[in-house]
Structures are given as structure tokens and as C-alpha cells.
């Protein structure tokens, strides 16, 4: 789960990482109040989960509370790369002497944690990695030892951080690592980490991704998740525990297993169709799960047909067939065609059940590729 900047900074504060004073606001009035309390110059920042908000006009300075109200009014409601701004973060503006980059993340290749520091901060770090890779210090930290002083020294020296910032940066990096581990984050990133005029080192921005698998042992996880708005369909999916991702096409997809479902999207695209979603029902092929899944998919009005692609392993195809029929009983108004492909455990029995039922919406195909072609053909010409 990716956090908003204001959520990440709350988490930072609680873990002892220095951040600018500030508070989130969802209206110009609220922004004015925050600015008045802070006093002096403030910066008003759009809270969106997409890069490049500064260039898009989503970060503005204001000299006083009235000014903060004005710029918050301009920023709230803005559309930044398809993300609507619903909240702004109002922070005290400080003087910046230098900008750096710092992060801790899970390094899949090394199967360990990775710390990264660079003196080139405040810019797109992926750009730096591509054009000037030596400007980024990378140090793997074993979870068995945790972060040691030499890890921090290597990051600071190799990252080219000026000596005057070492003391502050050392504390910040150690606290960042602790935050990374204690919150079960997969990424904690500060860009820029800044040296202020008074010699402090603070996190001016904050990006945090939390590991969903660790939600059960992270007491703050649920509250944070509640404050992150989801598209309508994904919200329903979450409530029904369906593994669903909305896409933009016209053919609904249900598969069992993440890999097979991804592959199903690909073969539909290869056959000239556009997949409308990813929905992995896993082993849950009973009527209730099927009905919830089918209902969810067709709540997207663009969807014109559905392809159910099942390879029975542990999942039994006869159960899937019964599940589909049961689902359709619960959805009597559904008119769209459904193409079903069943293989693997009890596929023969499953096909017989569907043949016998002869439901007007359902057609079958012998292979995954045939079924994809059929689903695409059934969508052609429909508006």
C-alpha cells in the first residue's frame, strides 16, 4: 500500500524522523487555519500519488495565511495526471541550503535490504540512476545484523554528502532504517532530504510503501488504508476479498491463479481484444464468489463479454461450472455472453454440467486460445 505524503510524514514523526511542521487540509479554510497557526511563509502541497506534481502546479508557496487559502483553493480539485487533488499538506517553508536523496527498500535481487543515498536530491532519482549511476551510493544491509555505523558512513561518503550535513544525516538515516523495519515497509524514500540554513537535516518529502502481508501486525495499517480512496470497483473488490484490478477494456476476465489470469489477459489482447480487468478467484469457485466476481465485472458498463478461464488443479471444474450457473441464477438480468474454458481436474464433468444446463448466455471453447478468440468475436460490433 502506497501512502500519501502527509500519512508518510505522520509515520516519520512517530518514528523520530525530523520533518517540517505542518498539517493536512481538505478545504481552503482549513488550509488557512493551519497556515495561521504555523505563522510566516508556508508551502502548500497537493496530496496525490503520482510524480511530477510540482511541474503540474501542485506545489505553491504562500507568504501568509490568506495567501495559503488562495493557493489551496487553486490546488484542491486539480487534476494531476488523472489524480484528483482532495487534500493539501500545509507546511512551514524553510530555507534550503542543499538537497539530497535517501531511501531504504527491499532489494529483490540481493534478497536483503538496500540503502541508497545521493547528493543529487530533489530531482527524479530514476533519471540520476540512468545518467549518472555513480552519484548514488548503494549499500546492502542484512536483516540479520540490522544497520551498523559503517553502513551509514559508506552511504554518506560514497553518496557525496558534504561533511556539515553528516551529523544530521546520520541520525536521519538511522531513524529511517528503524522506521522501514518497524513499519514493515517495502520502501521508505526521502527526496529531498535537505540541509537547512541552521544546519539541520530534515525530510522535506516522504514516500512510504507498506507490505500488505504484514498488515496483521501493524496497528496503524487499517486506519491508513481507510484514508486512501479507491476506485469504486476496487473498493467493492476489497470488501468482498476479490483479487481484482480494473483495466480499461471491454472483455471481462476471470481466471484462477495470478499467473494464469495474467496470461489470460495477454491471450485476449493477442486475439485483438481489450481486457477490462484482472480477477483471480483463486480456489474460490463457489457460486457466491462467482456471483460477486461476475457482478463486479459487469458493474463496469464498458464490459461487453466475459471470459472465464479455469485450469483445475485443486479447484475442481465441476464446482466451477456449478458456481457459474449459481451465479447466473443470482443475476437474472445479465444479458452479456460468457465464454467458459475448463481444463484440468474434473473438466469433463464440468463441461457436461454446462452443456446440460444450456444456459443462453454461456458458450464453451475447447482451449484457452479458442476461448479468447471467441470472447473477442462476441464483443465485435457491440457498443
Amino acid at each position, binding site marked *: 500500500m502506497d501512502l500519501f505524503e502527509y500519512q508518510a510524514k505522520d509515520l516519520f514523526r512517530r518514528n523520530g524522523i525530523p520533518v517540517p511542521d505542518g498539517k493536512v487540509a481538505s478545504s481552503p479554510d482549513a488550509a488557512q487555519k493551519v497556515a495561521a497557526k504555523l505563522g510566516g511563509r508556508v508551502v502548500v502541497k497537493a496530496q496525490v500519488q503520482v510524480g511530477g506534481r510540482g511541474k503540474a502546479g501542485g506545489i505553491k508557496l504562500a507568504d501568509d495565511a490568506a495567501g495559503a487559502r488562495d493557493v489551496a483553493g487553486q490546488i484542491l480539485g486539480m487534476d494531476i495526471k488523472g489524480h484528483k487533488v482532495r487534500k493539501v499538506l500545509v507546511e512551514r517553508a524553510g530555507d534550503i541550503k542543499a538537497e539530497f536523496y535517501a531511501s531504504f527498500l*527491499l532489494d*529483490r*535481487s540481493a*534478497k*536483503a*535490504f538496500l540503502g541508497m543515498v545521493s547528493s543529487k536530491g530533489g530531482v527524479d532519482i*530514476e533519471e540520476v540512476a540512468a545518467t549518472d549511476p555513480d552519484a548514488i551510493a548503494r549499500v546492502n544491509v*542484512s*536483516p*540479520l545484523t540490522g544497520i551498523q555505523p559503517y553502513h551509514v558512513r559508506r552511504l554518506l561518503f560514497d553518496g557525496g554528502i558534504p561533511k556539515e550535513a553528516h551529523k544530521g544525516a546520520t541520525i536521519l538515516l538511522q531513524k529511517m532504517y528503524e522506521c522501514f*523495519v518497524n513499519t*514493515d515497509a*517495502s520502501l521508505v524514500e526521502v527526496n529531498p532530504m535537505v540541509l537547512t540554513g541552521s544546519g539541520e537535516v530534515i525530510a522535506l518529502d516522504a514516500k512510504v510503501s507498506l*507490505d*500488505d*502481508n*504484514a498488515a*496483521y*501486525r501493524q496497528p496503524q495499517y487499517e486506519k491508513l488504508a481507510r484514508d486512501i480512496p479507491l476506485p469504486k470497483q476496487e473498493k467493492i473488490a476489497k470488501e468482498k476479498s476479490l*483479487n481484482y*484490478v480494473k*483495466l480499461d477494456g471491454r472483455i471481462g476476465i476471470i*481466471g*484462477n*491463479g*495470478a*499467473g*494464469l*489470469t*495474467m*496470461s489470460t*489477459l*495477454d*491471450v*485476449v*489482447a*493477442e486475439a485483438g481484444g481489450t*481486457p477490462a480487468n*484482472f480477477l*483471480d478467484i483463486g480456489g474460490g469457485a463457489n457460486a457466491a464468489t462467482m456471483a460477486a466476481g461476475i457482478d463486479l465485472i459487469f458493474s463496469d458498463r464498458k464490459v461487453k463479454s466475459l471470459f472465464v478461464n479455469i*485450469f*483445475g*488443479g*485443486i479447484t475442481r471444474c465441476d464446482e466451477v461450472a456449478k458456481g457459474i450457473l449459481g451465479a447466473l441464477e443470482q443475476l437474472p438480468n445479465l444479458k452479456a455472453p460468457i465464454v467458459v474454458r475448463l*481444463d*484440468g*481436474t474434473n473438466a469433463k464433468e464440468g463441461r457436461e454440467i454446462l452443456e446440460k444446463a444450456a444456459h443462453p448466455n454461456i458458450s464453451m471453447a475447447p*482451449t*484457452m*486460445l479458442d476461448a479468447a478468440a471467441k470472447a473477442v468475436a462476441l464483443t465485435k460490433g457491440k457498443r
Partner: protein
Amino acid sequence: MSILLDQNTRVVVQGLTGSEGTFHTKRNLAYGTKVVAGVTPAKGGQKWEDQVPVFDTVQDAVDDAGANASLIFVPARFASDAILEAADAGIELIVCITEGIPARDMATVYPYVRAKGAVLIGPNCPGLISPGKSNMGIIPGEITGPGPIGLVSRSGTLTYQVMYEMFTRGVGQSTCIGIGGDPIVGSNFIDVLSRFATDDETQAVVLIGEIGGDEEERAAAFAKENMDKPVVAYVAGFTAPPGKRMGHAGAIVSGSKGTAQAKAEAFEALGFKVGRNPTEVAELAIASIR
């Protein structure tokens, strides 16, 4: 020969008496797998289904039943403990089916298990099967038979699909391994490829990848340098949008890296054939040994 698992492997099932453990152990036993013990704390001394002795600890299962491999079905929050217990008891092959283990736990478990010299497959994986010999995990045994193709995959059902495509064309496998869909798994593609490279029975290898990370790219480079036998690949997730997690915790594209396109191109650039769909990769694999 097969790799890692054969008819002599002596399996202890951790979490045997749970519903998952019971269901799949029955299937594995019916396939012929030598399941010699189960472990469920505080149920030691019982006999599961009147045939498999249950122990309180893995160490007891090793000492008293001679187990040398462990199959783990315990829930996610207890799974890292189960893996470490198996490694400490001297188990050589640890297969963890459990889904949803926090990445921090696996980051801690991984270097420890490696240092112990054990091989860990998974977590969040279907396990492995050496057709005709033994089946450890949840792969359906009916859709495969013994044969010359080695298979390694990050997926579950997609793996079954490719196995089945080969099986219906009369070609079986030496060993099929699902390495798991999590960001940190015990064995990666290269670990498995290096075993297939020296296995006499394996004449060609199918590698099934998916979006996320750079394991496929590294596997392609490894195979180019170290494999004398044909390797064919398939990658799922061409239509996956960046930043979205496609079911598996590992299946997420960040930036330009980790896309299916980049992975397929990495194989093709080194001269390996890549199937556009599961059917085609099965056909390519069969063609490669004829």
C-alpha cells in the same frame, strides 16, 4: 534422474493436521510420495489417518522418522518460524506453500537458511513434482508424466497449463518446480537452472516468468553462459499496467524495468525462443528436443 526430489525423499509435513495439510498430504501420498512424518506442536504421539506419525518438533521427525525434506502448510504468521525450525533440524529440502508471509520475515529467513546449506522452495508456491517418482506440494499429479523436459516457474496454475499442454502432446517432465510469486523466495530461476544443467534426464528446460523484478533477465544471461541444453521461455503480464499489483506480491511493474516486454526481449536478444502464449511455449519446448 530428476532434480531435488525423487522416490527416496523422506518428507515431513509441517502443519499436517490442518485442513490444507491434510487435503494435500493425502494427494501426495496417493501419488507415491514418501511422507514419513507430520509435525503439529502438542499433537506429538498421534497417528494421522492411522498411517503417519505426528511429532511435536521437526527435530523429532528427523531423529525418529528419518525425514530429510519438509513440506510447510502452516499459516503465514507462523511460517517463517516453521522454515527456520526445519533448517535448524538439518532438513535439506524445505518447500513452503504458505502465501502471504511478510517480506521482512523472508529477508531474515533467506540468509539463515542459505547459511545452513538447505534448499528452500517458495514461499507462496505450488511446490515441486518429479513425475512418476514423488510429488511435494499442490501440483496435480494427473496432468503430467515422466519425460525429458524440466520446468521452472513463478506461477501455479499457469505452470499446470503448460505442463498439461505438453502432456496432451505426449511429452512429460523430469521435474517441475514452482519457485513462488513473492519478492523474496528461497530459490530463484538460476538456482534451479543450474541443477537442470547437470541433470541427465533433462534434455530441455521451460522457464515461465512473470512481471516484476529482474530474475528473468538474470536467468537469460545465466542460461546463455552455462546451459548446453535448449531453454525456452514464456512471460505473463504483457497487458499489466505499471504500478498495479497483479495478484502475486512480486508481480508489480515499477517504471520501465520489470515489464513482460523487457523480459521477453532479454531472452530473445540472447537467442532463446519465447512463446507468445502457453500453447506456443509447450510446442517450442517439444520442438527443441526433436
